[in-house]
């Protein structure tokens, strides 16, 4: 029953969502498909519209236009209490006048589930979030992590069609947050409920999601699996928001791409003619010593500073045109032996397969 969410998981089809607050457009012609059982994260800075979209999904905010279909059924005008969507709120929103048991039993009571079955299902939900035996506790007697689990149990105990989570881990401290990320992901794998997760923490999104939709200014910039999103960002915003990036201006002419007077080796097809930016991740850069082997692009630079960080080191360098790039590598003994000194001219290498270009906005 409780463990059978996978069979009841439904896909969500969102299309043409428009939302304006007092003339200001917050969401613009937004479309998004979530597969049944998928863990999809809406990632974006504050003000990007991700929470508004979640509120529209839950039914707390009315869109100006658009369609939300859950398993083919249109729910855009359905009141929140009929939507059968579980939600975990940022501040948990547990009912302070009820104990843990009654909090989790609340959705079952609304659905007129019998007392015996309620007791059984609450017990199983408590077990699932590892809070067995805490049913009689008052909410104010729980720690932050325990409240988080109660909120989660309450959102899934009634076997909702979809589960929404609004930055549910943001109130926890770092180590607990990382622990809960793993736990949430495992729970999702076990139960297989369609989940829409909102966060502004890119690391959290990458850790947990099947796919990530990066939102910016009311639009979805890119939607992809975490690996693809990181390795092949399609816009400057995505490249800058996910992971660290340096941008190097390049130009495409006559079907090949040029960085100053050097022709770039790359494995993907060259883009349209004109100015572009090369996305350079710190760990994709490496130090090469004069000899150039294989499909590597060499970038001459001057070392600015080298910072030792224990497991790795970071090297800040300046290219000929004055642009700053960052290189990060693990402190293997062979690398450590050859660490450059500040002011030293070096050659940075980036493999042809790691060259990613985005439009220069």
């Amino acid at each position: 029953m409780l463990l059978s969410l996978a069979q009841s998981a439904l896909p969500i089809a969102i299309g043409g969502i428009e939302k304006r607050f007092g003339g200001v457009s917050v969401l613009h012609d937004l479309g998004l498909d979530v597969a049944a059982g998928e863990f999809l994260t809406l990632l974006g800075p504050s003000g990007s519209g991700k929470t508004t979209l979640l509120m529209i999904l839950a039914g707390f905010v009315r869109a100006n236009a658009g369609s939300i279909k859950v398993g083919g059924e249109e729910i855009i005008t359905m009141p929140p209490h009929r939507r059968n969507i579980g939600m975990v709120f940022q501040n948990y929103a547990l009912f302070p006048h009820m104990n843990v048991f009654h909090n989790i039993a609340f959705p079952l009571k609304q659905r007129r589930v019998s007392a015996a079955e309620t007791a059984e299902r609450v017990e199983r939900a408590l077990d699932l979030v590892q809070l067995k035996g805490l049913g009689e506790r008052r909410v104010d007697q729980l720690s932050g992590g325990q409240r988080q689990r109660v909120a989660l149990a309450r959102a899934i105990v009634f076997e909702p069609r979809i589960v929404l989570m609004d930055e549910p881990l943001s109130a926890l401290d770092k180590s607990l947050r990382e622990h809960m990320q793993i736990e949430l992901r495992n729970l999702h794998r076990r139960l297989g409920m369609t989940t829409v997760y909102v966060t502004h923490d890119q690391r959290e999104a990458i850790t947990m999601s099947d796919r990530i939709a990066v939102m910016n200014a009311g639009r979805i910039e890119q939607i992809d699996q975490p690996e693809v999103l990181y390795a092949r960002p399609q816009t400057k915003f995505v490249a800058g928001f996910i992971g660290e990036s340096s941008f190097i201006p390049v130009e495409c002419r006559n079907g090949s791409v040029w960085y100053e007077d050097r022709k770039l080796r790359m494995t993907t097809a060259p883009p349209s003619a004109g100015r572009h930016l090369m996305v350079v991740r710190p760990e994709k850069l490496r130090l090469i010593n004069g000899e150039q082997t294989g499909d590597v692009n060499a970038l001459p630079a001057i070392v600015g500073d080298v910072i030792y960080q224990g497991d790795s080191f970071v090297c800040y360098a300046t290219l000929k045109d004055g642009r700053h790039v960052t290189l990060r590598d693990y402190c293997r003994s062979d690398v450590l032996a050859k660490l450059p000194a500040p002011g030293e001219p070096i050659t940075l290498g980036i493999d042809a397969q790691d060259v990613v270009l985005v439009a220069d906005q």
Partner: protein
Amino acid sequence: MSVASASLDHAGRPYGAINADALAADARREARGLLALLSPGLILVFAVIVVPIGWLFWLSLFDEAGQLSAANYARFFEQASYIKTFVTTFKVAFTVTGACVLFGYPLAYMLSQLPRRAAGICLIFVILPFWTSVLVRTYAWLVILQRKGLVNTWLMDLGVIGQPLPLANNFTGVVIGMTHIMLPFLVLPLYASMKTIDVDCLRAGMNLGASPAATFRQIFLPLSFPGLASGVVIVFVLCLGFFVTPALMGGGKVIMWAMRMEQTTSLYSNWGAGAALGVVLLAVTLALLGLFQRLLGARTTGVWSSR
């Protein structure tokens, strides 16, 4: 415990006793200092609360001849008029408190749901009557409600009624006048507690399948309960000792406890009997507060089970 067997420090004293005397002296000095800071407040409390109440209690123990007796208290049980006054006082207090809840709860709810600016403006209108004298407001009600007052004149002109309604100089008048004066005392604490209710709790309620009405009943109402309880207690206790409005609006027909006290002391100059009335009112009020505390305290801090 043997000091001799314990290890000693370089000065020949047992370990664990280093600077013990100086630290104890420092603690005593700090306690004295705090007491000195507290003393103005303590003296004030003693002078304006303990002494007068003690005096009141002392006075109530003497009859008119100055003899020590329990006659002042025995009178409550012997004279029917005292019991009647007592009953009237509670009847008025209950009715007014009920009316305040009836009008105050929806008002506070509306205020709590309004946008901040609109709520601020509306709150001014709630507080505004506070700045007007109770006497003035009570006379205003008399003008509005009396036989040839505004309400009766209008209703008769409109032909709704043939005879003037008895709205003033009776129980109804007292309740209307007092409700108006007591309303802010209920609305303000209630509004404050409603403002602290997390909007997300209400959203969570609906998200979990409760209709708006069910969400109100199962979540908003119980969460507003502490504010409602404190408002009810304030209004009820204030009603018990209220004087001006019942005296003016009652037309001599509604005699409340405080009016009885005034009669006893200024009309009959019987200070012993008056003091006894005061002591009884104080005792009843404290007993009620204690009762409220136990009932509502358990209700608001414990688990609200709706099974």
